[in-house]
């Protein structure tokens, strides 16, 4: 069975969901069901691990199964939440459409097609960004510019990598290719220029859209980068230098900028940037262990981001607010405040949270070769954590006129995520075993 059926199913489902998008409950459950059914199919149907589609090779090996399951289950969780506090009718079909193209990018073995599919997936997400604040297009435009400028760089790199494979002795060519590739992916990951579109998206988009961009789309871009470097080992050494130092820069400056923020949106954006830097450093160590830790880091990152955005989203929804601020919530919505706060600490790599172990692994690896930069990675995490600790003050308090929260789905699912996050913080082997098994296979 050809694995192309998985992205095709997502694209077909997006058309179906578009037709029923105004029936929020129906759209929600169709979206969730298709994601869960595809995860089941991924692991139980006899898909070929190697096949052909669009005249190019297409892969579905265990690591891709893990990555696609991560994407689909993450999307299903966001859909479940979005069904309760709808961020807009278009959320469900557009996210399914974007997921379809992301799945294509993850499975394709051609840099040109991978870049094209990532750009298409990102362009669809741009449409969702202005949904948060009426008339604000700053974040959407920033994301659009990053996507479109990165596209030709990666398309061009697709020709250059072929030449590099033929002439590995030409160091100028190898360096140029690595620089073009790193710039293209750096733009997509918002590392270049520092946090370029992340802040705008976090300010303008509904929290669940920000969560999808940072928690699902960026990890898929990261996976494609990892996959490309694996296919062209000659490039790996040069690219690792860019990734390592780019990651250090993003993490350190992201941490400092996060600490300086005075809004929930800014804190989320720069906290996510600092966290992305850690993953890039992991990949930049040019070892399979580093890459495995980077992948595990993305699994834990999704949990942290989901907690932040779901908690913040619930608070905003209950207050009827669409601003970047965080209203006081502990009195009426303690579960949302707890989720938000724990998610922030996890993103910062605070001990006892799920984000700690991977940040610890990367920082320790860096510390052995570059003690100062290893400490700087730790410090960036602490800066983000201090930013969230400072926000405790804002969350505190109660508005007596605000009615209590109705319904149980959101509080229960958020508390379940809190429990999972704490459990994995205490027992991180769960994530590592999953990633290790996929890598070994």
């Amino acid at each position, binding site marked *: 069975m050809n694995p192309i059926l998985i992205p095709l199913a997502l694209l077909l489902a997006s058309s179906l969901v578009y037709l029923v998008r105004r029936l929020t409950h129906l759209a929600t459950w169709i979206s969730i069901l298709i994601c869960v059914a595809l995860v089941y199919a991924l692991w139980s149907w006899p898909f070929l691990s190697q096949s052909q589609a*669009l*005249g190019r090779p297409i892969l579905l090996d265990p690591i891709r199964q893990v990555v696609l399951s991560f994407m689909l289950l993450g999307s299903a969780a966001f859909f479940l939440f979005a069904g309760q506090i709808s961020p807009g009718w278009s959320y469900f079909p557009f996210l399914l459409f974007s997921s379809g193209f992301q799945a294509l990018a993850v499975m394709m073995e051609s840099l*040109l*097609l991978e870049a*094209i599919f990532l*750009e*298409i997936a990102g*362009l*669809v997400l*741009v*449409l969702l960004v*202005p949904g948060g*604040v*009426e*008339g*604000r*297009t*700053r974040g*959407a*435009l*920033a994301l*659009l*510019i990053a996507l*479109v*400028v990165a*596209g*030709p760089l990666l*398309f*061009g790199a697709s*020709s250059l990598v072929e030449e590099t494979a033929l002439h590995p002795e030409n160091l100028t060519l190898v360096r140029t290719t690595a620089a073009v590739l790193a710039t293209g992916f750096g733009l997509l990951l918002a590392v270049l220029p520092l946090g370029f579109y992340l802040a*705008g998206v976090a300010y303008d988009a509904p929290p669940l859209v920000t969560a999808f961009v940072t928690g699902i789309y960026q990890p898929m871009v990261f996976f494609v980068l990892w996959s490309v470097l694996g296919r062209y080992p000659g490039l790996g050494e040069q690219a690792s230098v860019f990734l390592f130092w780019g990651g250090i820069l993003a993490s350190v400056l992201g941490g400092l900028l996060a600490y300086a923020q005075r809004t929930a949106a800014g804190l989320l954006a720069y906290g996510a940037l600092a966290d992305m830097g850690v993953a890039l450093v992991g990949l930049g160590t040019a070892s399979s262990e580093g890459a495995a830790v980077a992948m595990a880091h993305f699994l834990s990152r999704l949990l942290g981001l989901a907690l932040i955005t779901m908690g913040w989203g619930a608070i905003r929804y209950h207050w009827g607010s669409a601003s970047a601020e965080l209203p006081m919530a502990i009195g009426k919505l303690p579960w949302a405040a707890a989720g938000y706060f724990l998610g922030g600490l996890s993103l910062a790599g605070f001990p006892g949270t799920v984000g700690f172990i991977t940040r610890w692994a990367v920082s320790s690896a860096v510390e052995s070769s570059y003690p100062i930069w290893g400490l700087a990675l730790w410090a960036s995490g602490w800066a983000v954590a201090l930013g969230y600790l400072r926000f405790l003050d804002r969350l505190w308090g109660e508005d007596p006129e605000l009615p209590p929260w109705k319904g149980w789905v959101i509080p229960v699912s958020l508390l379940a995520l809190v429990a999972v996050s704490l459990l994995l913080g205490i027992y991180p082997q769960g994530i590592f075993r999953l990633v290790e098994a996929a890598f070994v296979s």
Partner: protein
Amino acid sequence: MSEWREAVVLGGLLLGGGIILGTGGRLATLSLLGLYALWSALLVVFVDISAGVALAKGLVGLLVFLILYPIASRMPQGDGSQVAAWPLRLAMLVLAAVGAYGLYFRYPWEFVPSEVAFGVWWMMLVGLLTVLVSTDPLQIGIGLLTYELGFEVGFTTAERGILAAGFLGMIQILLALVTSYLATARAQAPPATKGSGEEERV
């Protein structure tokens, strides 16, 4: 043939100028359509690409125009929505020409005829500089389309597969749709959001 070449280069320069200088969007949209038509013809004449692919690119251009022009025609013309004033935009135009000339000598595109190679750099720079001097979603979108089109012209000579051409065309149509959506969203913004300093910073 040499008259053709001169006419093509001159046409490309004029249309690129229209994109940077065209405030309000109507002139820029028409210039973009002209660039699509010019490059479709050019690909057939100079690069020897199949007429079918060139026609498909021309049709993509027409579709992009049909998506953007209704939005551009509803926008107030020359309302100062662009931050940069005329002198700065003229300076940008000169900068694009000088930059394209320099890049053309420093990084000539392999397998690409010289006129086309200059045009590729010219369009990419015009597109990027338009993005740089604009705050209006429509202008930014047109700049990005020009940048992408410029690259595609050069890239098509190396990658002639119909699959890549099809997907690149799809990206341009999607980009035009996103641009029109953002331009409409911006136009319908409440006055406080529309003119705020926050909105101006991209």
